[in-house]
């Protein structure tokens, strides 16, 4: 793994590529990579995009799930069907028209190309999230919701004070996968953020790789993989359980 080869000088890496630490770990290479490659600004970009992606996904999934499951508007079924249908559209179909849409939004004609918003907003259109949320809200005991209504809670109060606090487990699943997906994403930020100064680290590394010393590059790779790996170790149960859940939903 990247983390294990992160601390070796290039000479050793080349001479004995199999050994993990031919001369013992040399942590200075990590700080060298950090300063030389200016990783901090790319990491900040990644964090901004991941945070935005998380926010828009949670906002869309919770509000849509709540409206479709609890408020049940008249056209709810149609809308839910339209959301479900997008699950069956291959990503490839969307790439070019999505780019042109972001380049000039309909009606207002703003361009989001080169903005962080352009990189993270499309992530909100996740049918999987909406399905997951709606199904979870469907499973909440109706007695509690009705009781809150009788007590005079309006739709906003019901959402904020009753439904959301009960949804921590499913919010956790959506959040973890939202952040991880944003951290891993490559092709969309590459297309929508042409300015290297705004690119996230995963997009930046392949372009700086050819001109970078191998050991410094490996250290940089270790740094960029570290957070998702730590994330995974922290939320391991969530990952190992929800992935099966995802399979069940897809089935």
């Amino acid at each position, binding site marked *: 793994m990247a983390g294990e080869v992160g601390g070796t000088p290039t000479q050793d890496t080349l001479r004995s*590529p199999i050994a993990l630490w031919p001369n013992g770990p040399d942590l200075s290479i990590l700080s060298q990579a950090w300063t030389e490659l200016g990783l901090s600004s790319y990491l900040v970009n990644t964090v901004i995009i991941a945070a935005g992606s998380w926010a828009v996904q949670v906002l869309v999934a919770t509000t849509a799930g709540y409206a479709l499951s609890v*408020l049940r508007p008249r056209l709810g079924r149609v809308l839910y069907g339209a959301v479900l249908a997008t699950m*069956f559209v291959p990503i490839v179909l969307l*790439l*070019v028209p999505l780019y042109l849409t972001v380049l000039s939004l309909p009606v207002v004609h703003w361009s989001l190309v080169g903005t962080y918003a352009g990189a993270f907003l499309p992530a909100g259109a996740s049918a999987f999230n909406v399905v997951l949320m709606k199904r979870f809200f469907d499973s909440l005991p109706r007695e509690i919701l009705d009781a809150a209504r009788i007590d005079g809670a309006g*739709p906003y109060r019901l959402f904020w004070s009753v439904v959301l606090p009960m949804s921590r487990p499913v919010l956790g699943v959506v959040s973890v996968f939202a952040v991880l997906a944003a951290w891993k994403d490559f092709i969309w930020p590459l297309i929508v953020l042409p300015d290297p100064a705004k690119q996230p680290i995963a997009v930046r590394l392949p372009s700086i790789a050819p001109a970078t010393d191998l050991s410094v590059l490996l250290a940089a790779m270790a740094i960029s993989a570290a957070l998702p790996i730590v994330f995974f170790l922290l939320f391991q149960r969530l990952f190992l359980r929800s992935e099966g859940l995802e399979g069940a939903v897809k089935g």
Partner: protein
Amino acid sequence: MSRVGGPALVRGPARRRTSVAVLARWWRGGAATLVFLLPMLLVFGLFSWWPIARTVVMSVQDTNLVGPAEWVGLDNFRTVLADPLLPVALRNTAVFAGIAFVVGYPVPLVMAVVFSSLRRLRGLYAGLAYLPVVVPPAVAVLLWKTFYDASPDGVFNTVLGWVGLGPVPWLESASWVLPSLVMEATWAAAGGTVIIYLAALTSVPQELYDAASADGAGVLGKIWHVTLPHLRPVLLITLILQIIGTAQVFLEPYLFTGGGPSHASLTLLLLIYEYAFGSTTGGGAYGPATALSLMMAVGLALLSWAYFRLTRGWSD
């Protein structure tokens, strides 16, 4: 919760909820419902529904971003179908999907079956198998690129050298490049499928294994007669998902080889990317790019439809 739930039990109408109350709430909450639907309508509308609809329109237009789009009928489709690179990309994509099916598809299944037979440390192995899934793909490709160094000192070639094989020109020869890409892609994706299989395997009743043992079945016999039949519905779904996924392979050829050597790893999605954003052709050919996307999407939809028709009776 109790603060909300408590008084309602005292008040009578809570028991007579259902249709009337719900309907009334619906009418009174009309504006609120719209407010709650707004994020979904905006985000899905802008970034999903509108682009999907636009694909169909753009495939019969000449869009150059400078002037207004022109209607060109089926010209974009003709351009794509006449492109000598299309058969190359189609063939490479099919070969990639084929190798991924033969080599890559059994990997997570074997791993899951082995893991589930372990008495201890099952979670540890599942976690280790899943780890590559969380590594950013761009980082994983860069790492494997160093492994695939074609010189005898490369990581994989050193290992092969120990048993007297190689050196293999992993990414540099037209015949090795696709298998090399499949290997990395399998490593990167297997963990997710392993978890799905493990979850499905936990529901196999132990009695079935006991019964198979009593009938004299060995380990392989139990896998063949109990485990695999139990997994069949899941296996059918992971197979079509893998085919759809591998048909859209982009990241590996883009980052490993850029489609080379001499187009040996040019895939359909890479061709679409080249039409629209490519540096070699100058990009900007949005019409042909959407035309090819549309043909691919229709092809994949037909494939899935045929697949589910064909396998309908096999699930149970």
